[in-house]
């Protein structure tokens, strides 16, 4: 997929674990893991808002567009 979820980098910068973040934003650790590993097909605005609030960042810090084949 061309949209890359850069959540693991931001989480590492903020020194926060999957369990901690999932608890704070109110989703399961399994779902957060799906998001983190780029397996998700879509993200709700409410989830994005909660992540940005807790990690104190912008949506653009989490979501990156990369052309197909470019890595």
């Amino acid at each position, binding site marked *: 997929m061309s949209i890359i979820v850069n959540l693991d980098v931001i989480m590492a910068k903020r020194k926060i674990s999957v369990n901690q973040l999932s608890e704070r934003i109110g989703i399961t650790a399994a779902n957060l893991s*799906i998001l983190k590993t780029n397996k*998700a097909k*879509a993200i*709700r605005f409410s989830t994005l808002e909660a992540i940005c609030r807790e990690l104190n960042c912008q949506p653009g810090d989490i979501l990156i567009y990369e052309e197909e084949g470019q890595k």
Partner: protein
Amino acid sequence: MKITGKHSLSVVIKWMIHIAMVAGIALMLSLPWTLKWLMQLLFENVSSHYRFYLIILYVIGLCLLFILNELRIMFVSLERTDPFVYRNVIALRRMGVAAGILSLAFVVKMFVVNTPMTVLSFFVFFVAMLLSFVLGEVFQKAVAYKQDHDLTI
């Protein structure tokens, strides 16, 4: 009464399918003798159509057992309350093919020994074939929607 899940209507239907499958297998195994007995009872002699009836009834029996098995798989998924899986799409398509073979078998029977029941059975299985293929497509779309929903975080 609940429709899906444990202790629900789908479990009752699943057990009815199990019973029908066991009865069907027993009937298939005893078919050469049962058919002879039935022909003697109805026509007072084993007619020249005995071999034809035997073959056509084996084809019909095998197709029906196949359809029952696919239905059983679908009802197991209903018991798990997870019916929108790709295996059920395959089950519906396979049932459509089996229903198609059944309707063909009844067409063949129409040319050899025609009865009003044969014509009716042909129409029933022909419609069942069409319905199964359409439902298979509907299920495939439902599976795609469910996957999209499950992977929306």
